[in-house]
């Protein structure tokens, strides 16, 4: 099963620090292989903190998520949630 969607990033810091950490953790919690990248750019492994932060994603940017695997939809739901939650509302 595969799924794909494009999400606008909300946290003020973009995909850095806490939002990035939460994002990578969630990606690794799912069985699906998830890749992430700029809407019109190359995709990298969503489970790698180095790869994810090196994208340099800022608040307001659109990112593309592609998931491959049994729980692809669930993985994308969880990741979309993190990308659209303001940083101060992320669970500590």
């Amino acid at each position, binding site marked *: 099963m595969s799924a794909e969607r494009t999400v*606008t990033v*909300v*946290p*003020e*810091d*973009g995909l*850095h*620090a*806490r939002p*990035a*950490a*939460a994002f*990578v*953790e969630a990606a*690794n919690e799912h069985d699906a292989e998830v890749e992430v990248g700029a809407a019109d750019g190359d995709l990298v*492994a969503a*489970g*790698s*903190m*180095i*790869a994810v*932060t*090196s994208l*340099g994603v800022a*608040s*307001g940017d659109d990112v593309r998520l592609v998931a491959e695997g049994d729980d692809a939809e669930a993985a994308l739901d969880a990741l979309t949630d993190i990308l*659209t939650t*303001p*940083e*101060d509302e992320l669970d*500590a």
Partner: protein
Amino acid sequence: MSTERRVLPGTGATPRAGVGTVVWYDPGTELPDPPEGGVDAAAERERFADARETAEAELERERERTAESVGEEEAAVFDAHVQFINDPTIADAVEDAINDGLPAPNAVHGAFAEHIEQFEGMDGRMAERADDLRDVRDRLVRILTDGDRVDLAALPEGSVVLAERLTPSDTAQLDPERVAGFATVTGGRTSHAAIFARSLALPAVVGVGDALFDVPDDAEVMVDGDAGELVVAPTDEERAAASETDAAEVRPDPVSTADGKGIEVAANVGQPAEVEPAVQRGADGIGLYRTEFLFLDRESPPDEDEQFETVVEALDAFPDGRVVVRTLDVGGDKQVPYLDLPEEENPFLGERGIRRSLGPDADLFETQLRALLRAAAAGDGDLAVMFPLVATVEELEAALDRVDEVAADLAAEGVDHALPELGVMIETPSAAFVADELAARVDFLSIGTNDLAQYVMAAARENDRVADLHDPFHPGVVRAIRRTVEAGHEGDAWVGMCGEMAGDPEATELLVGLGLDELSMSAVTIPDVKANVEATDTDAAADLAADAGAAGTRTKVLERIHRS
């Protein structure tokens, strides 16, 4: 051993000074040479797995400690570190290197190298990731080599820590009760170490450069975060002055000058979490409550009730004080996703502050005013509301009309409300020039020296190339302040200041002399400024201000300040 007095310039992180004995900090990450005969790959892989677990446990403890002592936001860096430790790219590279015959510590070192270099070449935020990766790498290498390092959490009282660099993990362990300060070879005002130092009110000088390496262990030094200097073998006078700064006690009550003129000392607050620390540091009230936090970092604007509750909370925290709330000030360098701010060639000279509230954000402005007028009736303290970036009398009159309209609406709806004190932020040269006209229409003026200096000097705040020009001690800025205060008082308005200058203890006497009624600053310097106010004589301060106002150069202004 007697060491000669020397002054090493750097960048001050905190406007405080501390004296103590040098403890050199070595992160303990010396790499051993790989053994000649190769390694037992299975054993090395296991050592690496164990090291990751140990590192994660350490990070968890440091995260908790930091969340408690510094704040949740700063603690978040450790979440990122856990994810870096578990990065599959790193794990793969380490495994490959071990299979090629390298011992685990060397494999770890090599696995990070390329990524550190990659991030180092980028700017801003991305360069910070290089620091994070270095921090994580050093932690793993130290664990793998059983490296010794000074236990930063258990230093003798009165220690001054010197280091090439301090990582967030290192800095988080420093106990401000025991450590007198720190100085580092690398780093700038916005480095992790500097930000931590400010949060902990710890004296610190960063970016001293290689000269720091010449300061020996056990030397007596003064960390002067105010002047941005490390003084080796300070004189007795300097020691006394430094310990006096440190001794500035929290004064919970309002203070007066030596000859009895009351000066309100208030806190600048950027979010609700900063209200309680402001109370603890003895703030008389809030002199600048920035409301942007309510609007940033979310998908839609906050509703009236949410804004109302936030303001009432602040008013209740200062039952006998005043809370000055600034209406929404976006534009310039502050972006808000859902507001669709225009891309402008000169955003700082564009549609920002009151210009947006009277234009495209009129609805937000109305909602905010409704919340504020309701809060004025509901909260314990006195509410004051000020408008940012006013440049003309017409803008002020339009804003005041909006307040009247909102008050009339609330009255018609039978909603409990009250009119707060109203004021203008003086940030544009035009506002300073027409301060008399503005003061005639409001209760108070508050000088925002950061933007005022930027606009008076035509030097962008964030541009390092013109950083020297961005200084409120230039005569052009000093005279704009003097003019504003005089015009304000002629119009029967009280005049405050809420820029960085207000919290600079070195400026207190000058500002009292210029006639400021209120000074508002980051909570950390409130005790120092209150102590300075009590030590100031208004006549001497007025002489100082007259001389500074007549001085032709920044150097002369500073010379005069240092003479008194």
